[in-house]
């Protein structure tokens, strides 16, 4: 047990040192990289390793008779989580989400330190010592808190109330609900039931399962499936349409949405927000093809009231592309990102 805890402690100390090094720029921030595609699980795993490490540290300190006060364990662990979120994860997390995480981790620390009476007594003892002020040191601390706490509250209130020149917070609706139907080039499409006419098998029949087999594979990189190269001159049917969609994409869309469809095109950073990143699992992977069809055809100016604050410079492509071209470009986007359009069956 002791050996296991020692390993844990070692991992904890190393991890902590590395994080502190990254914060102060001593250790390059890309020493242990967050790997695209694995980042969400990597973050949770790293946190688990840290928890195991701190447990080992605490165990060893206890067995050496140098138990670390529970109060400071709680305070420091919460501080560690905030530091981790602020300095480990890149790009920076918006304050609203960090605030949510901060509150949850605060509650979690409270639940941990008050889970049983013994721990709770240990945790609150330093607080009671300051409040009781039986020693000179505690009396000085109490006086300091008496001055500091109102000052902090006052300072916080001042900063909150002070007029700010920053742009206000926007609650942007990423996926406003689409209309039931949309009219493009004189034809009405029911979004719930319409299908991409080019998602077809070799017999020319609509076949999602067939096209799903031919999209690129997700993973560390995005690789074409064997025998599914749209740029092969012999490619027919679905793959041929993907190629045609790709040509339309690179003639019209890639300037903003980027060569890799990740929203980082040549002009992307002229806009805020930058164009949609199709490789993110939260964009086209969550939507029906008909939703994309509607958004491409109608553009930013076609957003409904719900799409407040209408922060989209997407042109209404129905003014520049034919209906067939729109369907083909959508086909290409799903093929290239390796995502499947949402279906309801």
């Amino acid at each position: 047990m002791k050996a296991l805890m020692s390993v844990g402690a070692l991992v904890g100390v190393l991890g902590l040192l590395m994080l502190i090094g990254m914060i102060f720029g001593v250790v390059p921030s890309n020493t242990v990289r967050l790997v695209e595609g694995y980042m969400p699980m990597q973050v949770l795993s790293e946190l688990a390793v840290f928890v195991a490490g701190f447990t080992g540290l605490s165990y060893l300190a206890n067995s050496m008779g140098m138990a670390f006060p529970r109060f400071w364990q709680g305070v420091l662990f919460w501080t560690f989580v905030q530091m981790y979120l602020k300095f480990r994860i890149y790009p920076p997390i918006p304050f609203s989400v960090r605030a949510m995480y901060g509150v949850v981790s605060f509650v979690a620390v409270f639940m941990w330190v008050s889970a049983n009476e013994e721990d709770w007594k240990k945790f609150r003892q330093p607080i009671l010592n300051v409040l009781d002020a039986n020693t000179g040191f505690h009396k000085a601390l109490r006086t300091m808190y008496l001055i500091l706490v109102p000052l902090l509250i006052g300072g916080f209130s001042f900063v909150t109330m002070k007029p700010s020149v920053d742009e206000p917070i926007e609650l942007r609706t990423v996926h406003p609900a689409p209309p039931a139907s949309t009219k493009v080039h004189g034809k009405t499409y029911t979004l719930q039931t319409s299908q991409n006419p080019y998602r077809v098998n070799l017999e020319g029949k609509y076949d999602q399962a067939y096209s799903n087999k031919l999209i690129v594979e997700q993973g560390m990189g995005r690789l074409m499936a064997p025998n599914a190269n749209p740029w092969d001159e012999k490619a027919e049917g679905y793959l041929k349409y993907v190629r045609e969609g790709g040509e339309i994409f690179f003639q019209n869309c890639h300037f903003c949405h980027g060569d890799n469809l990740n929203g980082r095109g040549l002009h992307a950073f002229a806009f805020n927000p930058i164009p949609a990143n199709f490789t993110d699992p939260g964009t086209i992977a969550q939507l029906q093809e008909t939703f994309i069809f509607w958004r491409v055809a109608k553009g930013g100016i076609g957003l409904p009231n719900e799409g407040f604050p209408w922060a989209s410079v997407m042109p209404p492509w129905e003014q520049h592309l034919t209906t067939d071209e729109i369907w083909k470009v959508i086909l290409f986007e799903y093929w290239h990102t390796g995502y499947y359009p949402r279906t309801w069956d």
Partner: protein
Amino acid sequence: MGSVTRTKLMSVMALCAMIGLLLMPVLVAIPALASDGGAPAADAKKEGGEAKVEKGKDVYYKTEGIVSGPPAPKTTDSEKDYPRYNFESRVLLWFANQQHLYYGSFVLAVPIFCMIIEFMGVVSKDKALAKRYDQLAYDFIKISLTAYSLTAILGGILIFTFLTLYPAFFQYLSGIFRPVMHIYALMFVAESGTLYIYYYGWDKMKEGFLKWIHLSMSVVLNVIGTILMFLANSWIGFMMSPAGVDEQGRYLGNIWHVIHTALWNPLNLHRILGNMAFGGGVVAAYAAYRFLSAKTDEERAHYDWMGYIAMALGVSFLIPLPFAGYWLMREVYAYRQQMGITLMGGLLAWLFIIQATMIGILFLSTNYYLWQALGRMRGAEKYQRYIKYLVFLLTCGFLVFITPHTIVMTPAELKAMGGQQHPVLGNYGVMSAKNGGINVIITTTVLSFVWYMRGNKVSTVSWSKFGNIFMGCFFFFAYLNIIMLAVYGYYIPANVRVGLSVPQVATTLSCLFFMFALNSVMMKGAKQMGPIEWGKISARSQYALIMLATAFTWMMGLMGYIRSSVRLFWHVNEIMRDNSPWAYTHTVGFAANMISANVLFFWISIMFVFWLGALAAKKAPVEAKAAVPGRAAAPAVGH
């Protein structure tokens, strides 16, 4: 002997009367329905043939039917259609509706608890324990009786608010649901009669055959209550996903189509589970309040036990609640994609994040209560040092579960983030991760329950070591399976991904049923390390119960608001437009304040109800007081 026979006879007659009350509305309604459906046809025949019969197509069922009602009125922003005070009518209606729903849910849930607890008392072989269960059930129904009157009063206020502020809409709705509304009213009469016989007959029917009759009455009472709720659900189901009418909103003569809309059944299931969880929470809060204000150890022991039972019942319905909600959302998406997107990805998405936070709080409070409850058992110390790992699991699940897809941020933050989606956190914002998050939370709650159930016991079966290892592995692989499926969900088509929730839920429920069953077998004849010292629990645990109840109340208010506002500017979705000046969606801040005000009012008024209940107990005769179980030495009962 003769008197006993007469009492039995009277009891059986009372039960028959209840069943008669239950069936009366149906019997009364049958001829009404028949004539209702036949009237237009008969009229048509009188007028000389089928050519005069106008037919319409059902907007949902796509069947043809004879037009039997006027079209939905096209209202205007006028005093005629929307009479008003110098105030937003919608807010008044919101308040009346929410308060009625809170009390309605409470009085529908509590009799179900009474039925379960009374049944546990009847089948218990331990006489002292049976008596305690019986007294507890009686305490429950006593609380609900005052609340029942308030429910009726609030129902009246709600109807008057509708009639006076939204007359055109209410006229249309009542025109379509005319027979249903009459059945509803009759069912309410049946419910009242049954409830009073059930309550006042408690002492007269406390033993033997009569007790079984009494128990049967509670079944009838709950059947009536459930039908009442289903009927009320049909109205909101119709407003969200209308059926049985044509595109103009004209009734087509088939009342079953109007009731049985696309969302009726998911709403029924979700509401019944929600009511039960809410009812358990409110009773647990009542017990916590009484525990915290108790003057004696006996009182503390009684209310500690009452709080535990109410919490356990509430949570047992809370565990399947997210799955019922998932079904409801699935049906919403299937009914109208826009409605689903407005809810989960669009305008109302942030309210869903708040909902996820509330769900997390419910489970966190439950776990915290159970960990505190370990403190009143000798021998449970061995589990307490592992609690920090459960905290970690719960926190990770919770953080993933509440991560928003639509992040609130300043344009500067948006720019710094390099796009609308965060490359790390964006992955937590979609359904696949959230399913994993909530299943981890629920599985951890199940684990906490298992620890609690074996807290003061040591298994004596010969295979206990194997059993413990098996349980450990089972939970480990359950977590692994849930997380792996959540990750796998990113790599497959959406329709398959939606289906992945089934094995995830199955994994969680397997933990619940198999592990509870295995634990019970292992703990049969187990060595007791010490008794459960009822009343010796921290005050923090009781605050956790109050938090649980408050979170339930707030969440009910929130979900009611979300469900209602998803219709956007429609009174009846796509059939009758809301042309009042208030046909817009409130800001998140206003809605949150309004929900908080409703919650506050409910808790202040229910405190009054509790106070009344306590007043009655104080005035009880001396011999009745002696029967209060808490006053007897608390037996070392199981959980």
